[in-house]
């Protein structure tokens, strides 16, 4: 009986599959190289969502538009306190309006001045590694979030990373139309502080 001769299939490279695979690899490498090129700061920023409680901050930066911002820090306490003492005879609404008008008049900064104020804060943070600063940035929806990122990256660029930040959406009008603004005395640890409180609700 004659043996049947085995037919050996000719092995070919499957070009279609090969090209598919190459393109998949190409897309993968393109995407990963884009991720690598994304600035480190942008990827490392973790923006927590706000909660419906009383917020606390040392410095408030309210972005108004691309050119102006409203800045409140501990020095505003003396301004509010002096208005409360000087105009204590006014109605609560009149007192609120006077305080807010004064703050809006004195504390709206151009971005150059804001930069100077933030540089001052950074200098304080650099001089005292043990100090902790918290900055709340409020930004209206229509202002590009890149403006906030710019502020955050500027503030975070400190050797001791002792400036922290929080971000919420909001307009200057929310502050100017707040329910009440007044000074409060609070004991925190062994320190007694004269803080400004703004009630929105």
């Amino acid at each position, binding site marked *: 009986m004659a043996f049947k001769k085995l037919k050996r299939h000719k092995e*070919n490279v499957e070009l279609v599959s090969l090209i598919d695979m190459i393109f998949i690899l190409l897309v993968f490498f393109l995407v990963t190289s884009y991720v690598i090129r994304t600035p480190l700061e942008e990827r490392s920023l973790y923006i927590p969502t706000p*909660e419906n409680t009383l917020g606390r901050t040392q410095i408030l930066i309210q972005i108004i538009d691309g050119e102006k911002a409203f800045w409140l820090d501990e020095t505003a306490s003396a301004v509010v306190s002096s208005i409360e003492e000087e105009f204590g005879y006014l109605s609560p609404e009149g007192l609120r309006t006077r305080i807010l008008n004064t703050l809006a008049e004195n504390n709206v900064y151009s971005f150059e001045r804001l930069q100077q104020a933030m540089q001052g804060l950074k200098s304080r943070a650099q001089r005292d590694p043990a100090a902790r600063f918290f900055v709340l940035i409020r930004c209206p929806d229509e202002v590009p979030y890149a403006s906030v990122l710019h502020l955050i990256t500027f503030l975070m660029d400190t050797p001791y990373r002792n400036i922290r930040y929080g971000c919420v959406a909001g307009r200057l009008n929310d502050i100017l139309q707040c329910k009440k603004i007044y000074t409060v005395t609070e004991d925190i640890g062994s320190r007694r502080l004269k803080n400004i409180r703004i009630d929105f609700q």
Partner: protein
Amino acid sequence: MTKRPSQILWAAAALAVVLAFLIIRAVRLWRIPYESLTIAPEDQYERIEIPPRPGVRGLVITGPRIMPLYFAVDLARAGIQPLDWADLKNRCPGADVRIKCRVDEKGNLRFNKEDVRMEGFTEAGTIIQNAMRTWAYRPVKRGTLSFWFNVPSMGKKLKIDMQGMERVPSIPEHVPIIDGQLHYILGLPAQDIEVGSGF
């Protein structure tokens, strides 16, 4: 088993493209500055401080620290004279003198003869009065301040009664007032002095 030359060329070309891409990518990665290197996702949360969630119902902006005021003998005032305890002890070792004083809003310490009880210890009473008449306090409290000098006592040699003292009304309530050194006596250890209410 032989392959057609065209197929081998295609495969080689594809391999060359991939290799070229890998090489270019490696070179680009190698040239990235150290600061821009990627943090592995699993390490991000350990290395990056996550800021707290901000509140939106209201806002408290930290103000300046309110520095406390000290109620104490105002050593900056002119003419303040100390009481030398060693001298008092040497000259009148059994002295027992009580003085009830008034501190006015300006911090002046006032008393008259009727306010001094020094039965049998006139010399000691005079020494003490001469010193105390020069004393003045920082103007943050006012009221009655009583002193009991008991030189031979084995317990407290000086007791100061502050229960008649109150804040000066012009000082805001939120400003803390701390009691400091209420006397200007040299040579009397702090453990021999009791400051309280009543004796």
